[in-house]
């Protein structure tokens, strides 16, 4: 059977490679110093979707992302790797959303897409590490969920079977479609870009991007409808603005602090034979080791 799959993906600052200039003098995060990347586990999610597309001819993979205008890069990146289309949910009213307001907005966009058998997303995003949005979207749509998925084993007769990787073992579970699954980083890496798709989609743009696009390419958009990336606002997805963004977020950030280490008085040494011998002797004598 062919499937209609929606992949939820997020553009995130690369918090794994935070350099010394990542924090501003006032203690806030200097987002400009961090490259924006495709959230790693969302790439694992995309790969699971593309494998299902390989196995089930006629399957379509649609990306959905929420973020500022530049998050359209996420959709293009997905198209380059084999997705069929995508939507960018972007509106000032979405800004400042916690996980609950984010999942509300995404669920409204999914309701607008309407036709789907399976929603796949990464377990968590590296800028928040909460792993909340997947289950919250499932709850808002009244869907069952399979979190911590390492592999989709099969989809047959409207039932999906998946392997979950938990702290202390694995579980094989099954449920009827439609459902939502979240994918772990332990799942296979995403395939690389395909040169043919890069050629096909490199001029794909949202309405906003088209306004800034090089005039030479503007004729393309009417000839090749797949180059038009959909951009949706709060009104487009018929969302209640009060439930979006900051106003729709029950959690508030009271305080942000730089980390203050409880600094100790430390003894500094070079790794000379003498220094190491002395240190080891001390640790053995005071029964820390041995």
């Amino acid at each position, binding site marked *: 059977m062919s499937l209609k799959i929606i992949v939820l993906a997020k553009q995130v*600052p690369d*918090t*794994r490679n*935070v350099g010394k200039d990542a*924090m501003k003098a006032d*203690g806030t*995060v200097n987002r400009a110093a961090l490259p924006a990347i495709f959230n790693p586990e969302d790439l694992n999610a995309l790969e699971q979707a593309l494998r299902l597309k390989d196995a089930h001819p006629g399957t379509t993979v649609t990306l959905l992302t929420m973020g500022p205008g530049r998050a359209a890069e996420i959709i293009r990146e997905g198209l380059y790797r084999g997705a069929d289309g995508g939507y960018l949910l972007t509106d000032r009213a979405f800004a400042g959303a*916690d*996980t609950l307001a984010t*999942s509300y907005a995404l669920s409204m966009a999914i309701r607008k897409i309407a036709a789907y058998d399976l929603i796949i997303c990464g377990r968590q995003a*590296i*800028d928040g*590490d909460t*792993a*909340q949005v*997947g289950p*919250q979207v*499932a*709850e808002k749509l009244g869907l*069952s*969920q*399979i*979190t911590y998925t390492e592999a989709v084993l099969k989809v047959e007769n409207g039932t999906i*079977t998946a392997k*979950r990787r*938990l702290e*202390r*073992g*694995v*579980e*094989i*579970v*099954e449920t009827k479609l439609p*459902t939502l699954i979240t994918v772990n980083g332990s799942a296979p890496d995403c395939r690389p870009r395909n040169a043919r798709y890069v050629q096909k989609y490199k001029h794909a743009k949202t309405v906003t991007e088209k306004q800034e696009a090089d005039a030479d390419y503007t004729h393309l958009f009417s000839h090749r409808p797949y180059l038009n990336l959909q951009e949706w606002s709060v009104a487009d997805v018929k969302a209640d603005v009060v439930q979006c963004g900051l106003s729709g977020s029950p*959690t*508030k*950030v*009271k*305080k*942000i*602090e*730089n*980390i203050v*280490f*409880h*600094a*100790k008085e*430390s*003894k*500094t*040494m070079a*790794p000379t034979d003498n*220094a190491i011998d002395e*240190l*080891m*002797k001390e*640790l*053995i004598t005071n029964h*820390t*080791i041995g």
Partner: protein
Amino acid sequence: MNNIYVYCEIEDGIVADVSLELLTKGRSLAATLGCKLEAVAIGHSLDKIDEQIFPYGADVLHVFDDARLSPYTSLPHTVILVKLFGQEKPQIALMGATSIGRDLGPRVSSALGSGLTADCTSLEIGDHEEKKENKVYKNLLYQIRPAFGGNIVATIINPECRPQMATVREGVMKKEVLNPSAKGEVKIHNVSRYVSDSDFAVSVIERRMEKSKTNIKGSPIIVAGGYGVGSKENFQLLYELAAVIGGEVGASRAAVDAGFVEHERQIGQTGVTVRPKLYIACGISGQIQHVAGMQESSIIISVNNDPNAPINAIADYVITGSVEETLPKMIKYYKNNTK
């Protein structure tokens, strides 16, 4: 009413450590707030589960016992908590930041429209003043957690919504028996009044739970490596030192992400929290996400080429040099000077 609730995870009839840690924390929060602490046990064959729970200070235990509730699946456990919380109106609800708590918590929070903060490293009670509205909120739960990949620490509050929900990782809070013979009130609920057949949408067809291969949490000595170790091969030096001095090998998230070592060994905000007697940090720069999980170690040795590595600030001994140079010398001295 308006009490503190702790969801207790149960595997093979044993209440998970993380749940007992949360009961201990919940007990002290309840004392501060002057409210009761209530535990929720959902599973099967739970007749004696109260013996494990009451010693940690719960006043009330809610039991939902049904063969279909074990092993855990998302929907039935969610619907039970949502209905129970709807009736009881807790002010705070806590659960473990485990694959169960992180599956269940967001679903419950979404159904209740309540805020949920994941992976808190500290929970405190305090007030909040909303200056714009000239409003003061008394006795809120401060949910404190590293954010942004662990580079900052944020205090999160839920001023309006109840319950205030938070998850906490295993090992972050300390479990402590309050009174080994304590007894409390057991409320046995009629499960069929909470769940319907359609809630059993996901079936577990196979389950293989393994004992963990490593025992980082319980090890008195940890030799941990970071990205600065440089390669999977160089990590062998850490395994060698750990084997010689009787410790376990741990790692920072960067080393795990780089594929030097398996995830099971990750220490920090998104891994295990440890409090060993000796912690040897090799090539670890010391992002808060890591430090949060090891700063209570008694003695910390940092081996790092960078004399300004942030971790050096909390180290008792700083060896400014490479892992390749330092570790063999430690191994050699130990081998030559102990029996």
